[in-house]
C-alpha cells in the first residue's frame, strides 16, 4: 500500500504529516512511501532526509496520482480535491461537523476519508489523539510567544537596581493546552491563575501550581472530557469571578473550545479596554472564532495598549516537534486500522467507526 | 498487699533486680521498626524458653523412682528445648531478609 505525504498548503503552516523517523518506521512495516518535494522544509527536514530512507520524493501531481492513501494535517481544500481520484483514502483533520460541504465534495469524488480530529477521547486512543499532542505544544508555545511579546519579564527578581515583580498570567480553559501553558508559565516564575468550566480541572490546575478561579457551576458538565456550551448565566458569573485577575494580568492565554461549535467568547472588547496598559492576550481559539471578541486569526491587534494575538492550537512554529508527534499519532492510527498493510475496515470498532467519515463516496457521519 | 510488702522486705535485692530488668527490657525494645516486630517476637519467644533450665533442675532433683515427676520433667524438657532451639532457628531464618544484598 502506497502512502503519499502532501505538503501543507495552508498559509502559515510549517508542519508536515509524516516525519523522517516515522517514515522509516512505516517502511519497516512494509508500507511504500512517497512525499511531495520540499514538504518537510519548514520543519527543518531536508528532502535528502527522506530520500536517504527510501521515501520517493516526487512532484505534487505524482504523489496524488500514485498514492493509495493521502496523509495531510490540514483539511483537503478544493485544489487538493481536484487531484483526488476514486478509491483513494484521505487521512487528515477534516473538522467534519463544521465543514459539511467539504465532506460532500469528498463523497462526490467517491473517495474514502478519515478525520483525525474525530478520534474518541478514550484511553487506548490517546496515542493517536492529534488534538492532545498538538494542543500540548500549542500551550507551551503560547507562553513563549506571550513572553516574547511582553515588555516585562516573568520571574520575580530582587536586584541591586530594585525589585521586579513577577508577571501575572491568566489562563482560560484548563485543557491540554491550558495545562501545558500553566506549567510553562509557572516554570518561568510567573504567578499563574486559571479558570475552566469543568470543575474537575481545579485539582489539575493546582497540581501544576496555578491558583484556580472557581466559577460556581450550575450544571455545565462536560461530556467525554469535552466541555458543553456554557449558559448566558455562567458566562456572566465567570466575568464576575475573573475580572479582578483579568484587569491585573500581564499575559492572558485563552484555550476554551467546544468541539464542533464556535468557541465561547470569554473576553469582551469592553473587558479588554479595562486591562493593563502593555498586557498581552494570546487567543488559541481564534480559528474557532476566538475566546476574545477583539482577536482576529493570525493577526496582532493593539487595543489601547493591549496586544491581542489570534492563533490556533496548531503549533506551527514548533513544527519540528509538532510534526514528529503528529506523525507518530498517524502511525499509531494506521497501525490500528490496518493488518499487514491492508485496512481492516472493522466498522464495529469504536475508533474506526468514529473517524471514518466517508466510505467509498458514502457519508457515514454528519 | 501485705504479701507483696513481705516479699519485698524478704527479697529486697530481688525486687531491685526485677525492677531494673523491667526497665532494661523496656528501654532496649522501645522504638524499633515494624518489620522487626515478628522476628523480635520470635526471638523473645525463644528467650522465654529459659524455663528449660527449671525443667532440667526438676529432673536433676527428682529421684529416679518418682516416675511421675520424671515423666513430667521429661516432657517439660522436650517442650522447653523445642521452644528454645526452634525459636532461635526460626528467628534466624526470618532475619535472612536483612542480609545486605551488596
Amino acid at each position, binding site marked *: 500500500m502506497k502512502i503519499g505525504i502532501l505538503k501543507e498548503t495552508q498559509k502559515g503552516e510549517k508542519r508536515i504529516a509524516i516525519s523522517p523517523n516515522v517514515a522509516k518506521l512505516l517502511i519497516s512495516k512494509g508500507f511504500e512511501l512517497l512525499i511531495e518535494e520540499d514538504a518537510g522544509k519548514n520543519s527543518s527536514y531536508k528532502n535528502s532526509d527522506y530520500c536517504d530512507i527510501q521515501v520517493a520524493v516526487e512532484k505534487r501531481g505524482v504523489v496524488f496520482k500514485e498514492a493509495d492513501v493521502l496523509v495531510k494535517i490540514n483539511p483537503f481544500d478544493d485544489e487538493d480535491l481536484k487531484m483526488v481520484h476514486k478509491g483513494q483514502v484521505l487521512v487528515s483533520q477534516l473538522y467534519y461537523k463544521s465543514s459539511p460541504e467539504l465532506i460532500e465534495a469528498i463523497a462526490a469524488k467517491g473517495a474514502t476519508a478519515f478525520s483525525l480530529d474525530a478520534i474518541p477521547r478514550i484511553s*487506548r486512543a*490517546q*496515542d493517536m489523539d492529534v488534538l492532545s499532542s498538538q494542543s*500540548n505544544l500549542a*500551550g507551551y508555545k503560547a507562553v513563549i510567544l506571550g513572553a516574547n511579546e511582553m515588555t516585562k519579564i516573568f520571574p520575580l527578581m530582587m536586584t541591586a537596581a530594585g525589585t521586579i515583580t513577577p508577571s501575572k498570567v491568566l489562563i482560560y480553559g484548563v485543557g491540554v493546552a491550558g495545562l*501545558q501553558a500553566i*506549567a510553562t508559565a509557572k516554570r518561568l516564575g510567573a504567578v499563574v491563575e486559571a479558570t475552566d468550566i469543568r470543575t474537575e480541572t481545579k485539582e489539575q490546575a493546582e*497540581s*501544576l501550581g496555578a491558583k484556580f478561579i472557581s466559577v460556581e457551576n450550575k450544571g455545565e458538565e462536560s461530556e467525554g472530557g469535552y466541555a458543553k456550551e456554557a449558559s448566558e448565566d455562567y458566562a456572566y458569573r465567570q466575568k464576575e469571578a475573573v475580572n479582578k485577575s483579568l484587569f491585573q494580568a500581564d499575559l492572558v492565554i485563552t484555550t476554551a473550545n467546544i468541539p464542533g461549535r464556535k468557541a465561547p467568547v470569554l473576553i469582551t472588547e469592553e473587558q479588554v479596554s479595562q486591562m493593563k496598559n502593555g498586557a498581552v492576550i494570546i487567543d488559541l481559539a481564534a480559528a474557532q472564532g476566538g475566546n476574545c471578541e477583539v482577536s482576529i486569526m493570525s493577526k496582532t491587534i493593539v487595543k489601547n495598549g493591549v496586544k491581542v494575538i489570534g492563533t490556533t492550537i496548531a503549533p506551527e512554529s514548533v513544527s519540528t516537534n509538532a510534526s514528529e508527534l503528529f506523525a507518530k499519532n498517524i502511525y499509531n492510527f494506521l497501525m490500528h486500522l490496518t493488518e499487514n498493510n491492508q485496512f481492516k475496515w472493522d466498522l464495529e470498532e469504536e475508533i474506526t467507526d468514529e473517524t471514518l467519515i466517508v466510505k467509498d463516496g458514502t457519508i457515514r457521519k454528519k | 498487699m501485705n*504479701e507483696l510488702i513481705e516479699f519485698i522486705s524478704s*527479697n529486697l535485692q*530481688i525486687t531491685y533486680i*526485677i525492677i531494673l*530488668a523491667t*526497665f532494661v*527490657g*523496656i528501654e*532496649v*525494645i522501645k522504638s*524499633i*521498626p515494624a*518489620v*522487626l516486630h*515478628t522476628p*523480635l*517476637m520470635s526471638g*523473645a*519467644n*525463644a*528467650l522465654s524458653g*529459659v*524455663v*528449660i*533450665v*527449671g525443667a*532440667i*533442675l526438676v*529432673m*536433676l532433683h*527428682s529421684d*529416679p523412682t518418682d516416675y*511421675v*515427676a520424671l515423666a513430667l*520433667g*521429661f*516432657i517439660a*524438657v*522436650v517442650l522447653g*528445648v*523445642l521452644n*528454645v*532451639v*526452634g525459636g*532461635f*532457628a*526460626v528467628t*534466624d531464618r*526470618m532475619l535472612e531478609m*536483612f542480609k545486605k*544484598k551488596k
Partner: protein
Amino acid sequence: MNILLSIIYLISTITFIVGLKKLGHPETAKSGNLIASVGMGLAIVGTIFINDIEVPIIIYVLIGVAITIGSIMGWLIAMKVEMTKMPELVSLFNGFGGASAALIGVVEFIGNDNISGTKATMVATILSAVAIGSITFSGSLVAWGKLNGSLKSVIKIPQYNIINNLFVIAIISFSAYIVMSGSDSQLFLYGLLGLGIVYGVLFVLPIGGADMPVVISLLNSLTGIAAAITGVLYDNMVMLVGGILVGSAGIILTISMCKAMNRTLGSVIFGSFGATAVAEEGINKSLGTIKKTTSSDAAIMMNYATNVIIVPGYGLAVAQAQHVIHELEELLVSKGVNVKYAIHPVAGRMPGHMNVLLAESNVDYSILSEMDDINPQFANADVVLVVGANDVVNPAAHNDPASPIYGMPILDVEKAKHIVVNKRSMKAGYAGIENELFYNSKTSMLFGDAKEALTELVGELKGM
C-alpha cells in the same frame, strides 16, 4: 550455689540483654539472635553439668534424650516451614514454653511432700507458674490453629469478655484459696490447670486472625513472666532476669504492634479486639483483600533492595511531592541502591506532566525511563514504588476487554518482586475503575498523602 555456675548464669543473662538490644536493629538483629542463643546454650549446659548434688546416670541419660529429641524436632520444624507459616510456628513454640512452665509448677506442687508446710509465697509462686503456664499453652495453641486455618471461623461467644473477666477472677481467687487453705490436694491443682487451659482458649478464640500476632506477643510475654516466677522458685537468676526481660520487652513489643495497627492495648486486652478486624477496609469480594504496610517496613524493603523503580502518577502532582521523591531517590542512591523512574506516557493529566514535576526538583534526566525501555526491567526490580499512580499500572488494560482502558499500554510493575503503592485511599483514578494490582499478593499499600508518606519514608531511611 556453685560460683562457676553463677558466673555462667551472669554471662548468659548479659547475652540475653545484648541479644535483645541487637535484635532491635536490622543490621545487628541476626548477630543478636546468635548471641542470645549462645548464652542460652551456656545456661543449659551449665545447669546440667555444674551442680553440687549427686545425680544418677539414668537422669542424665533421660535429660540427654529429651534434649536431643527437642533439638532435632525444633530444628527440623524451623528449617522446613515456609516463610509465610512462621508466625503460627512461633505461636506453637510459645505454647510449648508455657506448657513446660506449667509442668514444672505441677511437679513442684506434687513433688513437694508437705506443701502445707512451705511458705505461702512459695506456694503462690508455684500456682501462678501453673496458671500462667497453662493459659499461654492453650492460648498459643488456639492462636496457632487460627493462623494455620485449622480453626477458621471467628467464634463469637455472647458477652465473651464478661465471661473472660469472670474467669480471670475465678483463677486468682481459686489459687488464693489454695494458698490460704494450705491444702495440698492435687485435685485443686489440676482444677487450676484446667481453668487456665479453658481461659486461654476463651481468651484467644473470639479474636480475628488479623490480630493474632498481637495475641502471640502478649502470650509470649506471659511465658516470660512464668519463667521469671519459676526463677524465683529456684532463686535462679538467669531464669528470673531472662524471664523479666522477655516479660517487659514482650509488653512493649505488644504495644508497639498495636500502635502499628493503630489500636490500643486496652482494646486488645478487653475484647473489643477483633471487632474491627472483621470490617477490614479494602476487602473486595472478587479481588480479595489488600495488605497494608508502614513507612518503616517500606523503608527497610528499599534499604535492602538492589534495584528500585519509582512509578510516579497524577497523585505525585496533586501532593506536590516532587521534591520529597527526589530526596528519597538521592538517599537510596547514596545507600548503593539503583533507582530509576518509570514514566508512563499518560501519567498525570497532561502530556509530560511527570517531566515538568521531576524537572522542577532537578531529577537527572538520565534516570527517567520511557515505558518501552523500562518494562523489561521490572522483572529484576526488588521493589517498585508506585506513587499516586493508578490507571497507568492497572493490569485490566491487559486482562479485561470490558475495561475502558483495555488496550492501553501500561507499566508491567506486576513483574517486580515487591510492589509498594502509595495513595490516600482505595479510590479509583481518572478512568474510575478498580485496580487489581492493589490486591496482588506482592503488593503492599502505603496509605496517605504522597508528600507526607514519602517524608516519613525518608525519615525512616535516614534512621538506617
